[in-house]
Structures are given as structure tokens and as C-alpha cells.
């Protein structure tokens, strides 16, 4: 007889691996591995949570609080997961399916698994503090190593962001910067050093990153981001980090990233103040929704004219790195639709809401159909008087 919950009348559903794969790809489900930790470590399906068989009764409510959630349970061959699924149905879970044949059948079909074997022994040691975090783990670490992040600028913001992303094991870091290291940069641009004054910033950053973590591939773009190259450059990356020092580049990046659907983590700093937000096309507002037009130059002095506390670059740069990692791993709550302000003098954080502008010329519903990819307005003129340097 089919197991049935006394209260809900839920019946255990048995599904083949192909169906499980389709549901996993479509998203919105909880995938539960009910094997022992050493089996899980050896190989598991990406994105699952682990509750060993003996722990299901005690832990499942905490890990899957929503009893109406769609849950697909698997184990090695389907027996332990069937028992766990029955147990959950008795506890009142309403939509539980057992994956028939378990991960053995999954692998038999040639479907991908994640395993700590994907990490070398050196990597397991290097990233051991990440592997201990359930939110990262081996899957997350592999995902970081496979991810590509582009940094716009290897300056105040880009320097700390690049160092921490490299340390975290972001596998490919692209850096766009056409400047050379100057002694006056070193008060905040900690990726460069005194011996590298006069070298291109991209080359200097590469040296620091490669010394820190040989897992990271650095791609240098010793150029300015322009309408002619923006789509090609950003197209190859999963997440873009905007640490540009001028408005024309910020608007250009926004417009191009909306066109290509690329998430942008955007921060800016001046004096003792910093701002940061995360713009994910389709999920929240864009930079133009927040700032429809740039301010006149007298209201937007540069760090070179106005000064900036070196530490500010570090604080905001690391907030950027934190946003990047959340986006790459799909965890937590990125700053989508939120603008976070940091005032260093008072040590105060303030959060403001950023709404999608229904009249936004770039991401709004009335935004013109994008036909001519690569055609952009004259940003220098749009930003009246701001130059891109």
C-alpha cells in the first residue's frame, strides 16, 4: 500500500532521474541528499542539501521549514531516500518525490555531479575554511573556481576587491585599466606596491594575484572601456564590478550590461563616504533608475580633486567582493534594489530603497527594442563636462 499522510493524504511520488533533472534545472525545488557525509563528499548533485538518514526526523524541519515545498529526495540507489520521503510525508510534507535509482542511476545517465574530487588536495587545504561553510562547501568552491568576474578599474575599489576575490578562488579575474601605478595610488590601492611604480596597473595586479593564488587566471585589458569594446569585453564574464572613476564609463557599463543581462556590483567613494548597490537586469533597477542623469562636474568632484580616505576604498571594495561572491554562489540577499551608504566619520550605514523606474530609457518596459547592439550614445556629451579620466 502507498504511504499516505493521515492529515494531508499526500502520496509518495516516484520519479525517474530525467524528470528530477528537468525539475532541478527549472528551479524552485529543494533537492535533498539522504546519505552519509562521506558519500556526499565523494559525489553529489549540485545544489542539494545533505541530511543523513538517521538525522531526517530531527533536522528536516529546520532545513526545510516550508512543508508545501517541492522536495526531491535521493540517496545512492533509492532505498534510503524512499524511507526518508515516507518519513517526511508522515511529518506533513505535502509534495515529496523519491528519485528512483538514486545517484547511481543519475551518473549512469551521464548527468553531472559535484565532488570534492573536483578539487585537488592543495585546493581542499587552501579553501578548507570555505569548505566548512554549508553555504559554500565543495559545490560553491567549484562554482567560484569556474566563475569569471570582470573588474572595471584596478584602482581604489578594484584593488581590495581583486585581492579578496583572488584569495577566495574566483577562477578568472579580468581587469580593465589603462593607467600605470603612481606613488600617490599606494595610500589605498593595496594590490600595487612601491617596486611596481610606473608599471601598468593590470600587470601589477596580475603579479599580486598570481603570487596570492595560482588558481586564478588573470586577463588584462590595458584599455579604457569604450562603446566599441564594451560588449566584447563584458560578454565573457558572469559578474561585473564597477569601480570606475568617472560617469561616462559608469553609464556605458550600465547600458551595455542591461543589454547583455549581466549583473553589476557598483560602488563609488569620495572623501569619507561610500555607496554601493547591485544591479541585476530583470531582477531589479539599473544604475539609470537610481541616477537618471549625471550631476554637473562641480557637484561630482573626483577623488584626485577632492581626496579620499584610503580605508574607504578598502571597506567599499570588500563590500563589493562580498556581493560578487553571493551572486556567484546564489546565496544570501544581494543589494538588489537597495543602496547602502557608508559614512566613515560617523561609522554609520544607511540603506535606501532603489525602485525600478518605469520610465527608464534603458531597462524600463518602454525602453526601445535593442536592435543595434554596440551603438551607444555619446557618453562624454551626456555627462556634460565630465571626462572619462
Amino acid at each position, binding site marked *: 500500500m502507498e504511504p499516505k499522510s493521515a492529515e494531508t493524504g499526500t502520496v509518495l511520488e516516484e520519479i525517474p532521474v530525467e524528470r528530477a533533472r528537468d525539475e532541478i534545472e527549472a528551479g524552485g525545488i529543494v533537492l535533498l541528499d539522504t546519505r552519509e557525509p562521506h558519500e556526499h563528499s565523494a559525489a553529489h548533485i549540485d545544489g542539494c542539501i545533505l541530511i543523513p538518514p538517521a538525522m531526517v526526523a530531527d533536522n528536516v524541519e529546520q532545513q526545510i521549514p516550508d512543508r508545501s515545498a517541492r522536495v526531491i529526495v535521493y540517496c545512492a540507489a533509492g532505498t534510503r531516500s524512499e524511507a526518508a520521503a515516507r518519513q517526511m510525508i508522515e511529518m506533513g510534507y505535502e509534495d515529496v518525490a523519491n528519485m528512483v535509482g538514486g545517484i547511481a542511476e543519475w551518473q549512469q545517465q551521464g548527468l553531472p555531479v559535484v565532488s570534492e574530487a573536483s578539487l585537488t588536495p592543495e585546493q581542499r587545504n587552501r579553501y578548507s575554511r570555505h569548505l566548512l561553510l554549508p553555504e559554500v562547501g565543495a559545490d560553491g568552491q567549484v562554482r567560484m573556481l569556474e566563475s569569471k568576474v570582470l573588474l572595471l578599474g584596478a584602482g581604489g575599489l578594484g584593488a581590495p576587491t581583486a585581492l579578496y576575490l583572488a584569495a577566495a578562488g574566483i577562477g578568472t579575474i579580468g581587469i580593465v585599466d589603462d593607467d600605470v601605478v603612481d606613488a600617490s595610488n599606494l595610500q589605498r590601492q593595496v594590490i600595487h606596491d612601491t617596486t611596481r611604480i610606473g608599471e601598468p596597473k593590470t600587470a601589477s595586479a596580475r603579479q599580486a594575484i598570481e603570487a596570492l593564488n595560482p588558481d586564478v587566471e588573470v586577463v588584462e585589458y590595458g584599455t579604457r572601456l569604450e562603446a566599441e569594446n564594451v560588449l566584447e569585453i563584458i560578454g565573457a564574464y558572469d559578474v561585473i564590478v564597477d569601480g570606475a572613476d568617472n*560617469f561616462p564609463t559608469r553609464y556605458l557599463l550600465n547600458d551595455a550590461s542591461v543589454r547583455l543581462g549581466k549583473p553589476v556590483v557598483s*560602488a563609488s*567613494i569620495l572623501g569619507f563616504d561610500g555607496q554601493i548597490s547591485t544591479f541585476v537586469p530583470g531582477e531589479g533597477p539599473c544604475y539609470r533608475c537610481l541616477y537618471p542623469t549625471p550631476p554637473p562636474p562641480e557637484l561630482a568632484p573626483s*577623488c584626485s580633486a577632492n581626496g579620499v580616505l584610503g580605508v574607504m576604498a578598502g571597506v567599499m571594495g570588500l563590500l563589493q567582493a562580498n556581493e560578487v561572491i553571493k551572486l556567484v554562489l546564489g546565496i544570501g540577499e544581494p543589494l538588489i534594489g537597495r543602496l547602502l551608504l557608508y559614512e566613515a566619520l560617523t561609522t554609520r550605514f*544607511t540603506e*535606501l530603497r532603489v525602485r525600478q523606474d518605469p520610465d527608464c530609457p534603458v531597462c524600463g518596459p518602454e525602453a526601445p527594442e535593442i536592435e543595434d547592439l554596440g551603438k551607444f550614445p555619446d557618453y562624454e556629451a551626456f555627462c556634460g563636462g565630465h571626462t572619462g579620466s
Partner: protein
Amino acid sequence: MAKVKIPPVLRQHTGNESEVELEGDTVGAVLEALVSQHPDTRPQLFGEDDELNRFVNVYLNDEDVRVLEGLGTTVSADDTVMILPAMAGG
């Protein structure tokens, strides 16, 4: 009295004050009180048509007044009005 937070770029026009307390029932009235006290802030905040400049973001507490009722948005005594400019420093 509403609290008005002044961004660094405008502080040269407010005697270096970063926060001022001002009377006013609406966002517009509070900002008018600001520019009458500190006239040099006017050209930064308002255009010749007396509309808020497009490049100036004004928040009532955590919400952009553009999605509220603009300058006509009601302000209570314990509210904070924040003037926020875009910054491009990196």
C-alpha cells in the same frame, strides 16, 4: 522639525553642517527652508523652473521622493530628508 542630511559636496554651502533641522510640512517646503537659510545650495538643488534637478536624489527616510509625491510629499517632525548626489569616485 525635520532632519535634513547634507551631502559632502554641498557642505561648503551650509557652513560645513552635515545635518540641519528645518521646518516644513512637505519635502518641497523643507528644501525651500534649506535654500533660504543657505542660498548657495539653490542652484545645486533646483533648476530655473523651480523643479528639483534631475541629478539630485532626495529621499524621505529610505524612499526616493520620486516614487512618493515628489516635492509635495508630506514630512513629519521625526522624518529624515536626505539629499544624495551620484558619486563616481573609484
